[in-house]
């Protein structure tokens, strides 16, 4: 589903964020990206989102080489990946329902589809009752669940999460993880960059550890491997 071939990234300021990364993530996998701060996790995430271009190497998503696709095709690539951030990024002037519906409006879904799909997603993330609430009226965990609903409402085959539990307490984080796992079970490939040792250790999923832009470990059912 995702393949990085010989990827290197040197930022304009000379920082070598990634060197010679080779990764293959199969459809339906749940993958943790771990490693110390500055290891290059977010750089990989940004590359998958076509926000950062590699200096060298190729990126293949869903059997399509997206390394050098035309600017106009970038949106279509992005529709294959839902994305969740640490800071939720909800629109404050839209309700929960509208925030999720927004993602469908943007890809020009029909009103009928929107009316059918959005409530389904809200019920999946357990927020049916909060549909009319505004983000500021929600807890952090609830806001993150809205952002997850928004990320998957268009049914992308891949879900990418960059430290989705970074702003949440352990219990809430765990709720979010259960949700991500549930989404993964439906067949969505999930890639999650994180510092949350407990979560990684408990989930027993594939762990890819980065250090200084290099893959130092890749285990099928791994643990976090660092002392936090």
């Amino acid at each position: 589903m995702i393949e990085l071939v010989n990827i290197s990234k040197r930022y304009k300021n000379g920082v070598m964020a990634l060197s010679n990364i080779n990764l293959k993530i199969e459809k339906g996998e749940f993958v943790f990206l771990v490693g110390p701060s500055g290891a290059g996790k977010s750089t990989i995430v940004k590359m998958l989102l076509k926000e950062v271009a590699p200096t060298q190497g190729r990126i293949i998503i869903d059997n399509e080489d997206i390394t050098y696709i035309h600017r106009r095709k970038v949106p279509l690539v992005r529709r294959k990946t839902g994305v969740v951030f640490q800071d939720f990024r909800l629109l404050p002037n839209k309700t929960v329902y509208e925030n999720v519906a927004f993602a469908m409006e943007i890809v020009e879904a029909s009103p009928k589809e929107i009316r059918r799909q959005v409530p389904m997603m809200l019920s999946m993330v357990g927020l049916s009752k909060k549909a009319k609430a505004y983000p500021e009226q929600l807890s952090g965990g609830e806001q993150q669940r809205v952002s997850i609903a928004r990320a998957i409402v268009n049914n992308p085959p891949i879900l990418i999460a960059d430290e989705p539990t970074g702003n949440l307490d352990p219990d809430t984080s765990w709720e979010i993880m259960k949700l991500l796992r549930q989404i993964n079970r439906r067949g969505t490939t999930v890639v999650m960059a994180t510092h949350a040792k407990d979560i990684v250790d408990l989930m027993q999923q594939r762990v890819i550890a980065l250090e200084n832009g290099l893959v130092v470990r890749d285990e099928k059912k791994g643990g976090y491997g660092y002392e936090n």
Partner: protein
Amino acid sequence: MKIRSIGYMIKEGLKNLWRNRMMSLASIGSVTAALIILGIILILILNINSLAEGVKEQFDAVQVYLEEGIDQGRIEEIGKEISQIEGIKDIKYESKQEALENMKKRWGEHGYLLEGLETNPLPNSYIVFLEDVQQSSTVVSILQGIQGVDEVKFYKDIIDKLINITNFIKMVGLVIIVILIAISIFIIGNTIKLTVAARRREINIMKYVGATNWFIRWPFLIEGSMLGLIGSALAIALIFIAYRYVYDFITTQMYVMITAYFLPVQLILDNLIVIFLILGSGIGALGSILSMRKYLKV
């Protein structure tokens, strides 16, 4: 793009416009101001052109005054000589008596003033019609060279002056207009920049969800074009009101001579509306496109 997206975009565009209404007002005002000035210049040019055309029609004739006291034979000879000059369409003789009669007619109710004249001061003359007014100067110099010709009168000078004035107005006007339009584009660009900044979050999310570039851009383009369009509509309305007022004033208060060439409101509007609407929305669209190129990375 789908039809219902168009509705969405117009809605978003108008929302943006309302959201920073102070800047929207400034943008609309600048477009209106620029187009009003453009309107004034165009109106001046159109009217002067019309006047020049009219004057040309009336005075495409050259009047050749003959010296006093030459005999009838010489007068006829001169007539033959004139009709042989190249570029002459027609020629008509007007004797002293006829000239006086004509003048009386022209003076109308004041014609009686000419009754008391002891001698007729008007000379015999030929009225020479030219094929092409542009070539008048050569013809005039030939006419002046003919024996027995006293003076050659031609109204090309007036036309030339009018044409010079229009050219001057055109040039100065063009410079002013270019500057004003540039200012309008700049102000609209700034308004759009504010909107882009205010909607950074939204744009960011749209980007990640996979909105196409144009889906993101359209609302800003619509906002800019709307600003320009509203500005031009305002300019048209103000010009319409002002011109009608001036037109009524001039046609009722001033000499028929000028007013006959003063273009009616309807004609001016027909000329201006399309130009203004296109120019207005063009200014707006350009302002937002320039601004988006700078501030909206998608």
